[in-house]
C-alpha cells in the first residue's frame, strides 16, 4: 500500500477495500445489507454501490470529549464480516485523537489546517463528536492539547458541513450530565449553534446504526430524515416495545415479577421489572447487538433506556416508573398519590370533628341561653 489510508481522502471506499483484500462479492453483499438496514428498496442497492465506488470518502474529524469511548468501541465491532474493514475505511478519518497513529502537535496541526482550509472553502469535512463538553468553570474539566474541549468543539463545528452527535453523551448528556452534573456537561446541541446536527443516541449506539448513517450520508450526500429531536427516523422511529419479542406477553398480561421466577423462566414480559422498552426509541429489537447475537430484553434483562434523555436520573432501573424528586425527598409517584389521598381523608375527618365540636358547643349554649331561632334553622 503506497499511501496511508488516513492521509489519502481521494481514494474511494471501494478502492481502499480492494487494497485491503476485500473481494467484490463481499463488497456487494455489504452494500445490499446496508441498503436493507436503511430501509431502501432493492433497486437502490446500485446507488449505494456506485456511491462507495465513485465518491471520495467522507472526510471526518472525530472529536472525543467527556466520554468512555464506547461509541468507538461499538463502531469498531460492526457486525458484517467486511464491516470491520469498511467502517474506518468508509470515512477518511482525518482526525481522531483516540485512533490515529500520529501524536502531539503534529496531529493538532492536521485538525487546525483542515478547519482553516474549510474556512477558505478549499475543503469540506464532517464533524463527528463522541462525548460532550463540560461548561462549568470555563470548561476546564476536559482539555485536549491544552485547549478546553468546549473551544475545540466550537472551533471545529464552525466550519463543518454538519455534525454527527455520536452516542448519548453527545446527544443528550448521558451520565456526566446526570444530576448533580458537577462539571456542567452539556450535549452538543447546547454547545454549538447554526449547524445541522444528527443525533445518534445510545450508550453506545448500535454499530449498524452508525455505519448505516454514514452509508446513507455518503450515498445521498445529505442527512437522512430526522425526527422531532434530531434522530434519524430510519433507526429511531419506533420504540423497542413495538418490535419486542416479548410483546405478546405484555398484551396477554403476563409479567415477570421477580428475577428467576416462573415468568422469567417462561420468557414473559419484563415490564414490571422496570423495562424501559415502552419508552425507548432505538433499533435494538431490529439489529440486536454483537452481530445480531442477542439484546438485553432477549437475554432476560429489561431495557434501561440508554438512548433516552435523562436515563441515569430516571431511576431506579428496576422500577416501572421513575422516582419523583422533591426537595429533600425521593419517592415513587404512587406514594405521593396515596399520601395526598390519605391527607385529604384526614383533612375531611378533622373538618367533621370540627363540626361535631361546634354543634356540641352550640347545643350547650342553647340549653343555657334562650334558643336562637336562626341558628336552629341552620342546624
Amino acid at each position, binding site marked *: 500500500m503506497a499511501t496511508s489510508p488516513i492521509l489519502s481522502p481521494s481514494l474511494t471506499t471501494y478502492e481502499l477495500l480492494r487494497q485491503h483484500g476485500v473481494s467484490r462479492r463481499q463488497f456487494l453483499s455489504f452494500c445490499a445489507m446496508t441498503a436493507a438496514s436503511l430501509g431502501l428498496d432493492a433497486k437502490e442497492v446500485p446507488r449505494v454501490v456506485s456511491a462507495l465506488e465513485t465518491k471520495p470518502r467522507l472526510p471526518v474529524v472525530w472529536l472525543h470529549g467527556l466520554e468512555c469511548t464506547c461509541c468507538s468501541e461499538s463502531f469498531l465491532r460492526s457486525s458484517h464480516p467486511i464491516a470491520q474493514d469498511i467502517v474506518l475505511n468508509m470515512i477518511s478519518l482525518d482526525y481522531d485523537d483516540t485512533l490515529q497513529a500520529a501524536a502531539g502537535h503534529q496531529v493538532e496541526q492536521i485538525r487546525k489546517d483542515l478547519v482553516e482550509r474549510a474556512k477558505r472553502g478549499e475543503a469540506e469535512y464532517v464533524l463527528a463528536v463522541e462525548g460532550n463538553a463540560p461548561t462549568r468553570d470555563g470548561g476546564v474539566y476536559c482539555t485536549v492539547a491544552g485547549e478546553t474541549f468546549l473551544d475545540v468543539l466550537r472551533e471545529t463545528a464552525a466550519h463543518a458541513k454538519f455534525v454527527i452527535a455520536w452516542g448519548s453523551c453527545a446527544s443528550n448528556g448521558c451520565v456526566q450530565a446526570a444530576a448533580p452534573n458537577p462539571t456542567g456537561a452539556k450535549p452538543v446541541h447546547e454547545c454549538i449553534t447554526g449547524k445541522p446536527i444528527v443525533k445518534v443516541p445510545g450508550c453506545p449506539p448500535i454499530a449498524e446504526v452508525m455505519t448505516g448513517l454514514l452509508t446513507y450520508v455518503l450515498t445521498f450526500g445529505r442527512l437522512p430524515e430526522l425526527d*422531532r429531536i434530531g434522530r434519524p427516523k430510519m433507526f429511531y*422511529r419506533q420504540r423497542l416495545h413495538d418490535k419486542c419479542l416479548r410483546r405478546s406477553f405484555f*398484551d396477554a398480561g403476563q409479567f415477570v415479577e421477580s428475577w428467576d421466577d416462573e415468568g422469567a423462566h417462561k420468557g414473559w414480559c419484563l415490564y*414490571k421489572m422496570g423495562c424501559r422498552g415502552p419508552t425507548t426509541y432505538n433499533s435494538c429489537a431490529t439489529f440486536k447487538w454483537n452481530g445480531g447475537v442477542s439484546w438485553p430484553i432477549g437475554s432476560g434483562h429489561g431495557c434501561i433506556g440508554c438512548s*433516552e434523555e435523562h436515563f441515569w436520573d430516571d431511576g431506579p432501573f428496576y422500577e416501572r416508573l421513575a422516582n419523583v424528586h422533591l426537595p429533600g425527598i425521593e419517592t415513587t409517584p404512587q406514594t405521593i398519590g*396515596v399520601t395526598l389521598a390519605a391527607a385529604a381523608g384526614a383533612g375531611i375527618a378533622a373538618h367533621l370533628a370540627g363540626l361535631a365540636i361546634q354543634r356540641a358547643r352550640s347545643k350547650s349554649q342553647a340549653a343555657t341561653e334562650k334558643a336562637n331561632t336562626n341558628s336552629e334553622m341552620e342546624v
Partner: protein
Amino acid sequence: MDVLAQSRRRRLYEPVLVWQWPIRIFHWVFASAITVLFVTGIYITHPISNATGEAGGLSRMATVRTIHFTAAAVFTIAFFWRVAWFFLGNRYARSGFPQLWLPSWWRSFLRQAWNYLRHDYRDVHLGHNALAGLSYVIVPVLGGAFMMGTGFAMYGESNPGGFWDSLCGWIRPLLGGSFRTHTAHHLVAWFFLVFVIVHVYLVLMNGTQQKNGLISSMISGRKFRRIEDSQRTENDDGQGA
C-alpha cells in the same frame, strides 16, 4: 300583582333551573370516564396479577388498555362539550370562574374558605362558589388538559408520524422524553383521586347543611332558592359574587 306576591310569600322556597341538561349529562359522563380511567390506569402502571394460560389466547393488558383509550376518548369529548357549554350555557355554567383579576372574586374566595373552616353554610350559592370554581379549573380543566395532552402524546407512540403523534407528540420532548411523560401522567392521575374525595365530601356537606337540593340538582337540574333570597338575585352568585 298582590295575588302573586302573596302566593310567593306563602312559599318558602322556589325551584330554579341551575344545571341545564348538557351540564348534567357532562357531569355523569365525565365522572364515569374519570373512574374508568383511574382504575384502568392503575392496572396499566402496576398490573397486579398475571393472566394464566397461553399468551396467544390472552389479552388482559391489551383489553385494559383499549378500555383506557376508549374512556380517554369519552373524557376528551366530554371535556370539550363542557368547555363549549361554558360559553353556550346559562349564567350558572360560568359561575365561580376564577376571575383572578377581580378583587371581588378574591373576597368571595376568601370568605368561602373561611366559611368552610368554621362550618358556616349560610352563604348559599346557586351556581359554583368561588372556591369550587377555582378547584374545578385546577384539577379537571388544567389537570384534564395535561392528562389529555400527555395521554395522546403517549397514545401516538404506537403509530409514529400518525395523527395523534403529529398532534401531541411534541409534548414528550417538552417533558424530557417518553419516560418522564409516563411518570407525569401517572402522578397527575392521583390529583384526580384527591379531587374526587374532596369534591364528594363538600357536595355531601353543602347538600346536607344547606338543604337546597344541591345533591339532587345534578340529576334534576334544579336547586331551591329561599324566596327572600330571590329578592336579591343580583347578589346570589352569577359571576362569582
